[in-house]
């Protein structure tokens, strides 16, 4: 931690504040726009993609181990300290995403585009598991019965085979991987574009 300069901490604050501001404005707006059941598919996916993009741009300006984690902690704390009720879900999601991104970026080698793509993909992929983890935490064992019942009734109502349900789940998972990878790719480019604009390369 001693290698962090004042500039590093201020930049961490800037990117944490940017992500936090988006969570508090766009995130709240999307939660109103989409019904709660659709959150996993739209709100979480969009917010995770944008969050990963901002955190990875921040990593370009603070090329230190732990920078993305600190950006996420600042974002989570802004979310906690803001008005508007209990927000345990988004806080858990933000922290899980930054930990996954940090793991992907954990290397002494100079940063590479593929690491950003991997970090973005891992971060947004968390969105797929998030609902299951939160449901398990909030509802306990009972949630497994809900899922089994929903899958059975869903496959019966839609006339779908259970194997097709698995295929749909795989597609949803791959969609998250793709969105995260794009966020990582754009994060790499955007960071360099801004650095060039500020004449820092």
């Amino acid at each position, binding site marked *: 931690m001693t290698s962090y300069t*004042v500039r590093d901490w201020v930049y961490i*604050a800037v990117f944490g*504040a*940017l992500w936090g501001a988006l969570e508090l404005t766009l995130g709240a707006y999307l939660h109103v726009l989409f019904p709660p059941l659709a959150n996993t598919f739209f709100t979480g996916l969009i917010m995770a993609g944008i969050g990963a993009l901002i955190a990875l741009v921040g990593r370009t300006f603070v090329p230190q181990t732990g920078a993305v984690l600190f950006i996420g902690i600042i974002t989570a704390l802004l979310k906690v300290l803001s008005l508007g009720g*209990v927000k345990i879900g988004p806080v858990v999601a933000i922290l899980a995403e930054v930990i996954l991104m940090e793991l992907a970026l954990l290397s002494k080698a100079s940063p590479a585009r593929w690491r950003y793509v991997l970090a973005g993909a891992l971060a947004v992929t968390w969105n797929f598991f998030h609902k299951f983890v939160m449901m398990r935490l*909030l509802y306990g064992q*009972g949630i497994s*019965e809900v899922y089994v019942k929903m899958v059975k009734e869903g496959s019966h109502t839609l006339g779908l085979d259970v194997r097709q349900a698995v295929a749909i789940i795989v597609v949803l998972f791959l969609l998250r991987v793709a969105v995260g990878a794009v966020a990582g790719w754009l994060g790499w480019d955007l960071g360099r574009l801004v650095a060039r604009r500020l004449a820092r390369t």
Partner: protein
Amino acid sequence: MTSLRSRLNAGSYLAFLVWALVLVALLPDSHLGPLLALVVAFGWLTGRGGLQVLASRRLWMFLLSTLAVTPFILGEADVRWGLLRLSRDGLETGFWMALRAATLMLAFGVSVAALSLAQMMHLFDRLGLRGLGFALGVALNLGPTLHDTVEAAYHTLRLRGGLRRPIQTARLFLITVVANALRYGDDVVQAASARAFDPAAGTGRGEPALGRADRAFIAGLAALGVGLLLAG
């Protein structure tokens, strides 16, 4: 009441949150009642601010919707109520699910309500993360500046007809916002440097992160947790 709050620091509230999370995940349904009672009691003893969650319409809608839906989707329907066929097992399962969710949300509300910005910064300072506390303070004060930056960038692009080319405009918008935010960050760096701020020189060094009351509180939490788990 306030004496307990003044004796505990942020570390205790974070420990309480982790303790509640672990117990909610591990305890059997039948032991959730005592855990909820402990969470409510702690919230009451530390100033009742965290219990304001109980006045939230959103929380009650969430809990009541869980209770209302589960008799229809869980278990075998064994009760007929007019045209509706309900399951007693489903209702019971729904009750435990709602209790678990309420416990977790209250624990989160109680812990967060007790944590002030100053306490968090003090905690980071004592943990040797003075820079993180500083960054949190900067981030909290950046809000209005970011708002102005975003607004100025958006209106500039809009007035120049940027909305006709949405992808290129989005790219320009992002670059402008991030670049301007970083320029503002440079001003903050200069101001901090002028005041000889050093993120590595923690003022709280030498002081323990947890006081005697905190250690006693955390030991008590651990004992209560083990007791609840063993009783299960």
